[in-house]
């Protein structure tokens, strides 16, 4: 990338912005926000606000420890852009189906609960797959490749068949018990 802005990005990359500063800031801000929100470490003062200094200190330390671990930083840098790409794809899809809807707030969960459930499951599977694809095993393959290889090689074995039966049985028990509880049984 030879454009002036591209050179700026290269400069920042050499400087370590993407490998050190941004992952640190990300972990720090998320952890600080969660600690402030949940008040896990207790409250202080008359207005019972979270212990900001303690939260900041813990977030700072954890952020530094994370950026010192090369594997974790690499995983973050590899996975997050793909998560954003997935987010943009989902948003594009919502925009596309939004054209077919009435002029009102988009409420997939209320109006189309089955589609909502489908997309929640899809989002969960996709996020897990993206992160598994970013984590490398000891043999150089990603976790996703390891799992996929295991599925494709074990597909016609007793282990895989047993797992499928187990899932079906659990689903059947859940479905039957749910039906009973809904009908007052």
């Amino acid at each position, binding site marked *: *990338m030879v*454009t*002036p*802005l*591209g050179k700026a*990005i290269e400069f*920042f*990359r050499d400087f370590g*912005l*993407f490998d050190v500063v*941004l992952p640190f*800031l*990300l972990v720090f*801000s*998320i952890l*600080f*926000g969660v600690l*402030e*929100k949940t008040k896990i470490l207790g409250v202080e003062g008359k207005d019972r606000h979270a212990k900001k200094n303690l939260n900041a200190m813990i977030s700072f330390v954890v952020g530094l420890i994370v950026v010192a671990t090369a594997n974790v930083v690499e995983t973050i*840098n590899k996975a*997050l*852009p*793909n998560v*954003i*790409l997935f*987010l*943009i*794809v989902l*948003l*594009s*899809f919502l*925009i*596309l*189906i939004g*054209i*077919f*809807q*009435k*002029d009102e707030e988009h409420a997939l969960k209320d109006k*189309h609960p089955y*589609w909502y459930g489908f997309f929640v499951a899809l989002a969960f599977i996709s996020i897990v797959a993206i992160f598994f694809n970013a984590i490398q095993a000891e043999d150089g393959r990603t976790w996703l490749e390891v799992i996929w290889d295991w599925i494709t090689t074990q597909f016609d074995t007793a282990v895989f068949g047993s797992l499928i039966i187990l899932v079906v049985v659990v689903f059947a028990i859940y479905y039957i018990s749910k039906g009973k509880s809904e009908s007052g049984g």
Partner: protein
Amino acid sequence: MADFYDLFFLLQDTGFYELVLPFILVFAITYGVLHKVNLFRKNPGINSIIAIIMGLLVVSQFQIVDRLNLFIPKVGFLLVIILMFLFLIGIFQKGDYEGFTGVAYFIAVIISILLIIWALGPSLGLSLYEIIPIELQSSGGLILGLLVLGVAVWMISAGGTTPRGKSRSAFDNLIDELGGKRNP
């Protein structure tokens, strides 16, 4: 004399399309989603910090930016096509546009999913043609014909009756749903 083409090429040469626009897009979407989810209620500033970090991380990955630049124009193109379709439908309708409902909405969602896969295809190296197994591809005409026949039979035979006892086919219902009406 400089014209719009010069301006366009100047922006392209400076990396405006490869860095600035993707950054603004990712920042805006991430910030919007975080603001909507409202995870950090007491510290809304964290939303903007996370959005900036996400934007910078994305533009640092040239491969992702390339995928975005391939994907987004196609989505814009699809939007125009769908809008033209609705524009044509709108000619025959009376009153305001009420959106699709029922089966028509279901079909719209399925078509939207297929279109998104098509738009993503070149950037992810997959195409709709590759997803369909070879066995099905060879007998695609037969399957398509049976599908059309099945849909036609269903449209005519399925349906129901109105509260006044008048019979309605699934085709009648579908036409109503295209206009956003609930089935009577």
